[in-house]
């Protein structure tokens, strides 16, 4: 369809407006990256200039002084195990509830839906008390327990996903002598891998970036999120800005690389994710 002159002009104006917003998104990161190569004195005297020479001292110091390696380890451990456990827990419930009718199955489903509606802010205090009584505060496994909750938007998506997979595959396998476990792990899970992958990626980003849970339940250990937040508060008093910039750059790189590799799939899943509304 041909565009009229007026529409074309409008499109260009809007494109420029979008461009301005895009610059506000990118500029802060360029500012961070550029200044991460400067010495602190150089940065304070002029925040705009390009670094005189690219020195990686800040990056080395960030690793040596700030325990960045430790933060990385904690974050990677929590993300890997937390995502796995959370997805397993949600898929199991979604699969069993969507495919098996048993005593109490519809009650479980109804209760899950009802409790999803209640904002869990109401029970932070009780959750904290329970975690404390179970001795799970300030331990990495404790956080994993929190990530393991089966019911959430993940469950809803996977539930409709498993519903859509025909049971005849399972029947065929059962005739060949496969048991329930084989059917689930060998047939159903692989069939649902597209859905699980999409949901899993969102869970993964969520855990990697999670600030609130480690802030409350991991007071004496650092993940990247809580560690960086502390570094930035320290920087305002110590003035060690450029080191913090380096630490920030390092922390974003893994997600950016991941996004660059799977950009198309991630975007498509988000675009399709609108369906869940």
């Amino acid at each position, binding site marked *: 369809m041909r565009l009229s002159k007026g529409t074309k002009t409008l499109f260009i104006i809007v494109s420029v407006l979008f461009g301005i917003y895009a610059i506000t998104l990118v500029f802060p990161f360029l500012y961070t990256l550029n200044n991460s190569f400067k010495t602190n004195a150089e940065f304070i005297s002029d925040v*705009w200039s390009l670094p005189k020479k690219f020195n990686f001292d800040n990056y080395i110091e960030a690793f040596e002084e700030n325990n960045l390696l430790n933060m990385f380890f904690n974050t990677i451990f929590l993300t890997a195990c937390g995502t796995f456990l959370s997805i397993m827990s949600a898929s199991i419930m979604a699969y069993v509830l969507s495919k098996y*009718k048993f005593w109490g199955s519809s009650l479980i489903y109804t209760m899950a839906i009802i409790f999803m509606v209640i904002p869990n*802010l109401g029970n932070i205090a009780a959750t904290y008390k329970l975690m404390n009584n179970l001795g799970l505060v300030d331990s990495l496994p404790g956080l994993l327990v929190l990530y*393991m909750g089966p019911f959430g938007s993940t469950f809803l998506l996977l539930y409709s996903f498993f*519903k859509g997979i025909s049971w005849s595959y399972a029947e065929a396998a059962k005739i060949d002598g496969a048991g329930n476990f084989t059917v689930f792990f060998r047939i159903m899970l692989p069939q649902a891998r597209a859905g699980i992958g999409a949901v899993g990626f969102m869970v993964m980003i969520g855990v990697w970036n999670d600030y609130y849970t480690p802030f409350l339940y991991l007071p004496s250990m650092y993940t990247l*999120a809580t560690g960086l937040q502390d570094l930035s508060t320290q920087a305002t008093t110590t003035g060690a800005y450029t080191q913090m910039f380096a630490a920030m750059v390092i922390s974003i790189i893994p997600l950016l690389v991941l996004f660059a590799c799977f950009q198309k799939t991630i975007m498509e899943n988000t675009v399709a994710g609108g369906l869940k509304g």
Partner: protein
Amino acid sequence: MKEKVKHTLSTPSGDKLWKGDKIFIVLMIAIPMLHFALFTLYVNFDSFIMAFQDVDYTAEVNTLKWVGLDNFKKFFTEWGENDLWMRAVINSFGYLPVTVCVMLPLSIFAGYFLYRKIPLSGLYKILFFLPSIISIVVLAIVFRNMFDASIGPINWILENIFKMSKDDIPNWLVDEKYAMWILYLYAIWAGIGYNVVLLFGAMTRVPTEVIESGRLDGVGIFREMFQIFVPIIWPTVSTMIIFGVTTIFTQYIHPMVLTSGNGKTYTIAYLIISKVNQGRLYYSAALGIMLIVIALPMIEFTKWLTGKIYDTVET
């Protein structure tokens, strides 16, 4: 979500469960259900109990005692003492117009122009999406740095290009006159991209015949945007409205990472969490109960209301 109903519930082994099936089910759901029982059922039940309890500080060993409505009374006393709670309520409710009246129309607008493939729309789609994969802590730090009084580019520009004197330039995130507005700005800056991509996605699923017949009738761009697209993608739009209402009660992360509540930027949820952090668990539980009692009807009412508008439209 509607198509879900169409599938009939298939029972795997006919109508009857075999013994093997039962063992399988029990083994599979044991751990998730234990989690649900402890961290959802018990915790909700205990929240309710805790709201009427407190630690008995007079006893030698830590014991609990029933305090009736004391925790609730404490809230009203605190409310009267200073403007802490009043500000928190105002700040929290401010998120509603910010998300529904500013962010949502802007997102529809932006999503529409991405759909129309304006110049560079492919690049913008990717850039707009970036904030949703970057850690909120990192986003908050870079955003805060922009507004920083000593190292921030914004104050530098105001001082050196607009020649404002240093004393006239506010310390944005500390000054209580501006801090909350900067938080709202952050909400839009960091949150709009995800909405734009979602709305864009919903628009691509609208049948092209509908759009084309509208164009043959000479429908202009803005009528097309709001009179053709919005009704058809209403489920996505209404999800965002419902989210906007929920945000009033669940927004704690912005003050937490941007200001730590300084500059009177606390929200209701932020205060409830900070009470937990201060170890005042039982008081916090009472606050949580009050929050749920107010939030649930409001959220459900919004769901009902958004369902009423355009309820004939199927997607």
